[in-house]
């Protein structure tokens, strides 16, 4: 079971839902929690533990200027403007390169080879029995989040229960995290922004063919518009978490609702059961 937690709008409580769900399930099952919000991962704050680190690299071209005839074929081929061929030298802009390897293939003089370039790190920890946490972190200044997300997911590929906390929004990093998931929880909040961005996120998961259900977080009870949208689009509201000072205080301390208030564990267990039903996984 691969379950993604996404949102559209940022700050709705993806990580809160992911952390509490993983914590609750890990009391009875083996769970892997993957922080796919590699531009600002935060799940490690809820689960401090010593971690093993590995580097994430991508291949980038290196031009051998002694073999290069400056014919310009690589520069013409590159759709991202990463290579500019001048009469006596080649300029390479690594931040524009998408590591497609095409320049190496089109070079008639075999003057290009690839070398790994570090773009981020993965950290793996076992913060408590039953729980493995994998966090991807993109290096500052590195523009490509997708390869770091892909590497983080690969580490969890064989694990039986995987919960993936995605980045907010609907762009490439979110699509990469969602790709291949069996079901998705979309977390929203009782605001016009929450609903607007939920609509975008619903569109994305529909196009990816991933069944989705809704969690309304910080509900002030005025959810009529969100509920109407969910009814119209055949989306189940699987859980509603109230707007509560106590929950906010627990969260702000870096604590977990389900650890501080264990009575919430049954709600998160019920949420997971609904996700399994969404995904069509037999109990």
């Amino acid at each position, binding site marked *: 079971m691969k379950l993604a937690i996404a949102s559209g709008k940022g700050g709705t409580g993806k990580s809160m839902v992911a952390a509490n769900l993983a914590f609750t399930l890990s009391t009875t099952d083996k769970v892997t929690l993957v922080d796919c919000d590699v531009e600002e991962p935060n799940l490690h704050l809820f689960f401090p533990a010593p971690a093993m680190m590995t580097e994430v690299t991508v291949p980038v071209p290196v031009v051998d200027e002694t073999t290069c005839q400056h014919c310009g074929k690589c520069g013409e081929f590159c759709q*991202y*403007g990463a290579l500019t061929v001048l009469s006596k030298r080649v*300029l390479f802009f690594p931040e524009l390169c998408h590591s497609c390897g095409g320049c190496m293939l089109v070079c008639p003089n075999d003057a290009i080879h690839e070398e790994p370039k570090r773009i981020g790190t993965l950290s793996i920890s076992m913060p408590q029995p039953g729980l493995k946490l994998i966090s991807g972190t993109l290096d500052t200044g590195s523009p490509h989040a997708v390869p770091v997300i892909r590497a983080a997911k690969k580490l969890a590929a064989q694990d039986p229960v995987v919960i993936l906390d995605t980045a907010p929004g609907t762009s490439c990093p979110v699509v990469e995290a969602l790709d291949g998931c069996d079901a998705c929880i979309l977390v929203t909040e009782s605001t016009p922004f929450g609903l607007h961005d939920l609509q975008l996120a619903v569109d994305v998961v529909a196009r990816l063919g991933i069944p989705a259900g809704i969690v309304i977080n910080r509900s002030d009870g005025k959810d009529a518009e969100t509920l109407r949208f969910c009814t119209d689009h055949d989306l189940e509201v699987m859980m509603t978490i109230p707007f509560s000072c106590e929950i906010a205080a627990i969260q702000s301390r870096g604590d977990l609702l389900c650890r501080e208030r264990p009575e919430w564990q049954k709600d998160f267990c019920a949420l997971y059961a609904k996700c399994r039903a969404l995904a069509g996984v037999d109990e």
Partner: protein
Amino acid sequence: MSKNNGAIMKICFTAKGTTLDAQTEERFGRAPYFILVDSENGSFETIQNPFADGGGGVGPKAAQVLIANNVKALVSGQVGGNAQEVLAAAGIAMYTYRAAGSVRDAFDQFTKNTLERSV
């Protein structure tokens, strides 16, 4: 491609239209047109920028168009870092013009040497 031998100086102006009366365009990589003016006799040719609506990395790509056309100087409002690096490496001088006037006006100012050289 250019046939000239480098004796004549070609100046590139970024423009919103195709003639000398067109308004100048502030952006370099996403300028709709490049108007290449011959500094000796004022004749010009217009190139449609194929990267004006490109996804990314348009700066270096547009700079390559200038290199291929043997341009010696660029007059534009705003040239990005990557494009600047390419143009500087190719020895193309860069001048800033932000008055939003016509290409003709920018060319006048260039010939009077009143434009600020950025690189």
